[in-house]
């Protein structure tokens, strides 16, 4: 790989000016659409994920809006119970498996991990392309299951025996989830190998940027936990087709076993979803504070601690399932342990800003919203982790709100922050700041109005997955519905603003923000082999001394121009 790196370096030197990866397909024999569909360039694969993930995101967002519209009034508002059950199942399956899990690792991880490591691609470029095709196949099957024999109506958790006995097309959806799991696993394998084998010569472990560290921690969870889900989903298919009886009590099986197996993956999976988001925030806050991240080693350590401890807390989803009280004790205890590394990260982010030189920009604004919303998500998780209070709010709207605060307020907002942070790097253009702020404020306001009432509804006792509800829950659901519309409007403004930048966005320099990690040292958009000159390890990745010095010499730098956009 080092040799290839050197050759590419000589090649790019020979051709001046430097062409971006958009102009130089890899392999070079393909042109047009083929240059995308048959590419092995990690940047192009990242962008193919971006296109497909965004489509799924918008579809699932609209499904979510339909759910909340139905719930704005009691009784049947815009659909029947059967449709409602199918819609919340698809909303969950699409959001989880096709948006939240792949969003940050598959788009930004693919694009940036090799660059942050100072190399030209991932270790298995062809496997990387295969992962994308598996992702597309899984998505296609999920859509197909909509039209064949009725859409699935089990919720994204596919609990047995219901998922085995229902007449709808659970088999196809489960197969889709199986294939998507495969895709996620292969991406994890690729990232782990790349981090181990392809760091530029001289780069030590404690010199790896925090975003890549978070992807590394995530990749281990993907690789170790996903097979459990794959096996479980396969067992559901076997139950449905052959009636194997593993989960069927009348044949000596145990339905609770399914829940253990399912959550043994699906709880670690929420850390697959949040860890990369935390990595994004750890990159953005230092750049706009012009100050080193506070406690680099503690953040690295907490990422790994979350990956390990997060794999041991799955049964906190099952306090009411009838499992033993000893298990409740142990899993509640472990759940509180896993809260601590997350708290350390929040403290580190806030402390990074202390005595910094802070410039407000859309990516920083999204990051601050992330810290606020994620903190609410994390703290309400304590209510769920404690055994006694869990019993009251388990399977109610409280869980729905908590989960969305972590997954949407957390991962979703980190994804938005990442979009705004790396947009100029990926496309070489800058978007309009004013519209980005309007979008961020709308999204956050809508978000709060949408989910805060659900906490109250949950404590009052409104269960989740309810098509209809008792009259006392009317007011909360009505306000949540209003919030949903504001939230979706905000997201649409944000996406439109980014799309408009293709038409009239200003050209962005290679380092519009003043970043220190390697991606900011190369042209925007990057050339095919990422680096024009072989990168040299800089030691500590968050040393802002040079940036501060060059900025004080030239106050009219790109950043100040950026802020006036």
């Amino acid at each position, binding site marked *: 790989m080092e040799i290839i790196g050197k050759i590419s370096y000589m090649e790019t030197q020979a051709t001046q000016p430097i062409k971006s990866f958009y102009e130089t397909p890899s392999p070079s024999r393909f042109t047009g659409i083929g240059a995308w569909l048959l590419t092995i360039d990690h940047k192009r694969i990242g962008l193919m994920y971006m296109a497909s993930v965004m489509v799924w995101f918008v579809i699932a967002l609209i499904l979510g809006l339909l759910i909340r519209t139905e719930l704005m009034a009691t009784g049947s508002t815009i659909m029947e119970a059967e449709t409602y*059950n199918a819609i919340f199942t698809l909303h969950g399956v699409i959001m989880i498996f096709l948006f939240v899990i792949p969003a940050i690792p598959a788009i930004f991880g693919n694009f940036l991990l090799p660059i942050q490591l100072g190399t030209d691609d991932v270790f298995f470029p062809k496997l990387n392309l295969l992962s994308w095709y598996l992702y597309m196949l899984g998505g296609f099957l999920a859509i197909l299951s909509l039209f064949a024999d009725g859409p699935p109506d089990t919720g994204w958790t596919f609990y047995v025996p219901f998922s085995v006995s229902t007449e709808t097309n659970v088999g196809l959806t489960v197969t889709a989830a199986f294939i998507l799991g495969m895709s996620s696993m292969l991406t994890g394998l690729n990232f782990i190998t790349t981090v181990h084998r392809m760091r530029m010569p001289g780069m030590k472990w404690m010199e790896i940027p925090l975003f890549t560290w978070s992807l590394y921690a995530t990749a281990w969870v993907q690789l170790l936990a996903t097979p459990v889900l794959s096996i479980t989903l396969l067992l559901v298919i076997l139950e449905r087709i052959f009636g194997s009886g593993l989960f069927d009590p009348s044949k000596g099986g145990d339905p609770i076993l399914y829940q253990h197996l399912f959550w043994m993956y699906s709880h670690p999976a929420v850390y697959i979803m949040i860890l990369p988001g935390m990595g994004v925030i750890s990159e953005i806050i230092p750049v706009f504070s012009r100050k080193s991240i*506070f*406690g680099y080693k503690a953040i690295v350590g907490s990422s790994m601690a979350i990956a390990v401890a997060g794999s041991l807390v799955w049964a906190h989803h099952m306090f009411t399932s009838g499992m033993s009280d000893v298990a409740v004790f142990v899993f*509640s205890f472990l759940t509180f342990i896993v809260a601590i590394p997350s708290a350390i990260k929040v403290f580190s982010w806030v402390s990074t800003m202390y*005595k910094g030189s802070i410039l407000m920009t859309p990516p920083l604004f999204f990051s601050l919203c992330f810290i*606020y919303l994620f903190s609410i998500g994390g*703290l309400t998780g304590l209510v769920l982790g404690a055994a006694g209070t869990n019993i009251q709010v388990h399977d109610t709207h409280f869980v729905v709100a908590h989960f969305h605060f972590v997954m949407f307020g957390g991962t979703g907002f980190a994804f938005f922050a990442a979009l705004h942070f790396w947009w100029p790097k990926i496309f070489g253009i800058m978007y309009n700041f004013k519209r980005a702020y309007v979008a961020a404020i709308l999204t956050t306001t809508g978000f709060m109005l949408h989910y805060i009432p659900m906490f109250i509804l949950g404590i009052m006792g409104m269960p989740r997955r309810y098509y209809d509800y008792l009259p006392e829950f009317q007011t909360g659901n009505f306000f949540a519905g209003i919030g949903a519309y504001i939230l979706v409007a905000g997201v649409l403004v944000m996406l439109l603003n980014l799309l408009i930048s293709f038409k009239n966005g200003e050209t962005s320099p290679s380092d519009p923000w003043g970043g220190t990690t390697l991606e900011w040292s190369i042209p925007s958009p990057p050339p095919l082999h990422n680096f024009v000159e072989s990168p040299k390890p800089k030691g*500590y990745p968050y040393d802002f001394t040079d940036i*501060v010095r060059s900025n004080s010499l030239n106050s009219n730098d790109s950043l100040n121009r950026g802020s006036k956009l």
Partner: protein
Amino acid sequence: MNPIINPVEKIDAAFLYIIGISLVLLTLITITMIWFVVKYRRSKNLVPADIRDNWKLEVIWTIIPTCIALSMFWVGWSSYAGLRNVPENALEIETIAQMYSWIFRYPGGKETDSKIVVPQGRPIRLNITSDDVIHGLFIPAFRIKVDAVPKVHTYAWFYPQKTGRFSVQCTEFCGIGHADMTAELKVVTEEEYNVWLKSDDK
């Protein structure tokens, strides 16, 4: 005989404890964050300090949250223990979940559908199972929720101290009628209960 402790009080205290501390922490984090962003804005503070870590501070903010988390764990656990330890003289009612209704079977053989009547002032133990898929029995007023699992026997107990009507809901998604799988819990006086038990009311 020991006085019966109603688990509801301990659970509500646990809610207050955890949510109270969380609100304080959230406020502190948010205020500090906004204060830093405003105070150290680039137009006022062009040259940043170079602080990379401070192990003393980091140890402190690892230990204090650990202590808080462990105290919350304990408060949560002890309130849960109250839900699991059924007093001795409890009235036992067999509870069977099915798509999409709740069946209650009283000692003596009386059976009701989607309606449960219990005497005031006596602990009630529900022995729960399911006839088909997994359901979840949820009585928010008494803070109890237990899944009804086919061929498995779970239980919950509650202590109705006041008369009134309360709702029972299903909380484990069970199909098209999930949201309609509700029942009414009626707490009546001991005398009314005895009269009702002998009546034909179902």
